[in-house]
């Protein structure tokens, strides 16, 4: 077996060596191959959590609630949402060294997990495109701040530059990503503290806490309910990156604690900066107000670090997307550079039409986000209550019908039906496109309903109906052979 370092030549032709196929592919990752120890796990989660999506979420809440209620909803909601998705994914992907979509197979089935894969890729690549547009806009704002007139094409060129930098980092592996994060994380900590300091000194705490929401809904209770909903949904939206990070950590504590602390607490705090700036300045985009507030030098430095944080977030998303693409038979053995180039291809559209796609993006992604809650609920129930934290690893990589997770023609229709049920539960309680809500929304966030209801129905269905049926089916088959019959790697 090769012991070549991930940052070496391995992204190319030598990928059939074991180490590299676990790093650039779906093979279970052994403990000695994992990159993240204590500090690198915290550094990566910190840098990943501070992308400009925080500023979008925080700024959106400024429409509905004031500073105190908004901060509570953002910090508390992110913590709750993050633990809801991280509990099972982090534990399972770390324990077995599994890629995230592989971890979905025990619940959704060999082929059913591919349906989750489609939503997963659309979501991850969609988010990456939006962040890169924000990276491009950041460059435009830096140029404007320095007294030049930014040309119209600059935002698109910035997206193209972002794609190129992300490609360079991602093709050089997790080790390079970790190094990059170790460099920018200290700077990011300073920038975040500086932003908060500038806001408080420029406007004063009294002005901040007494600032009125920008565009509240007519019914007072709805504003707080929407703020709670957005806070939890923001935490749930980390679903895409959890498995990738956990799989690359050496210990279970280093897998889950950094995720909860940074995606929950730190992300909530950074979102709060955008909430406050939205309330008192009227803009949630720090690339617009950092220069006027902090002066040219500090402002530009802050903008550069925020832009670099976007690159980190995009790199993690594309790395996870690349691994997920390995589920497609024709791409399993292609070079890592080819796979990452493929994930970058849809991002080119964001370079051509940055403004148009950015304007359409939030509605599209809000819809995608509703899919993650039911998937997370089903995975939690499946891993802890039904599988009791035991996964048959051989069956994950077995495509033959004798595999334990083959179910019906490769699909577990109960779990897949749970996703649809979750959509109904979500939109039955709250419709984010029209702001119409059921009375239950006052006490029950739609994301929590879309998480709990499919999980409960799935647990009851499997426990009292399907589990026994599938056990009988496996009992009637040949016992699992020592060797894989149809390995799907």
């Amino acid at each position: 077996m090769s012991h070549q370092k991930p940052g070496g030549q391995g992204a190319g032709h030598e990928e059939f060596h074991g180490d590299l196929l676990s790093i650039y592919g779906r093979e279970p990752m052994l403990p000695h191959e994992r990159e993240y120890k204590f500090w690198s796990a915290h550094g990566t989660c910190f840098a990943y959590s501070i992308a400009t999506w925080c500023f979008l979420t925080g700024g959106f809440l400024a429409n509905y609630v004031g500073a105190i209620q908004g901060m509570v909803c953002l910090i508390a909601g992110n913590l709750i949402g993050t633990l809801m998705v991280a509990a099972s994914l982090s534990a399972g992907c770390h324990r077995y060294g599994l890629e995230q979509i592989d971890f979905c197979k025990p619940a959704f089935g060999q082929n059913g997990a591919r349906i989750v894969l489609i939503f997963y890729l659309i979501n991850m690549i969609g988010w990456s495109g939006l962040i890169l547009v924000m990276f491009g806009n950041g460059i435009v704002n830096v140029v404007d701040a320095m007294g030049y007139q930014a040309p119209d094409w600059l935002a698109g060129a910035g997206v193209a530059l972002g794609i190129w930098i992300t490609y360079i980092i991602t093709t050089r592996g997790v080790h390079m990503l970790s190094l990059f994060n170790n460099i920018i994380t200290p700077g990011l900590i300073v920038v975040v503290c500086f932003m908060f300091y500038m806001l408080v000194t420029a406007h004063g705490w009294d002005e901040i806490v007494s600032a009125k929401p920008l565009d509240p809904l007519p019914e007072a209770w709805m504003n707080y309910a929407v703020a709670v909903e957005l806070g939890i949904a923001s935490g749930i939206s980390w679903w895409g990156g959890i498995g990738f990070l956990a799989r690359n950590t050496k210990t279970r504590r280093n897998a889950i604690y950094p995720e909860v602390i940074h995606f929950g607490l730190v992300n909530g705090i950074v979102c709060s900066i955008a909430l406050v700036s939205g309330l008192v300045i009227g803009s949630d985009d720090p690339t617009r107000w950092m220069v006027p507030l902090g002066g040219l030098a500090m402002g530009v430095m802050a903008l550069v670090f925020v832009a670099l944080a976007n690159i980190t977030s995009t790199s993690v998303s594309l790395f996870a997307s690349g691994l997920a693409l390995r589920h497609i038979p024709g791409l399993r053995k292609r070079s890592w550079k080819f796979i990452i180039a493929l994930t970058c291809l849809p991002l080119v559209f964001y370079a051509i039409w940055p403004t148009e796609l950015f304007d359409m993006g939030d509605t599209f992604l809000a819809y995608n986000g509703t899919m993650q809650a039911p998937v997370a609920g089903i995975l939690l129930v499946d891993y802890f209550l039904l599988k009791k934290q035991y996964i048959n690893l051989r069956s994950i990589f077995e495509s033959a019908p004798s595999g334990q997770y083959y179910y019906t023609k490769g699909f577990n229709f109960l779990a897949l039906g749970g996703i649809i049920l979750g959509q109904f539960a979500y939109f039955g309680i709250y419709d984010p496109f029209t702001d119409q809500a059921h009375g239950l929304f006052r006490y029950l966030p739609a994301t929590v309903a879309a998480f709990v209801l499919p999980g409960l129905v799935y647990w009851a269905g499997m426990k009292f109906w399907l589990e026994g049926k599938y056990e009988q089916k496996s009992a009637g088959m040949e016992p699992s052979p020592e060797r894989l019959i149809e390995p799907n790697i």
Partner: protein
Amino acid sequence: MLEQEHVPDLQRDLEQRIDTMQNMGDAELGTFSRLDWVILIVFAIVIPVIAMELAR
């Protein structure tokens, strides 16, 4: 592209990894006790829910 003759090596490597990870004791991947779960649930569920109710 992966050469055809490497496929048996790849499958053998995968089988070895499956056996290694399946048979590995939980303790080899770092301890994680019930106290960790209690800390996480209090930190990320109980306190946030109380804070949200107080801020309502």
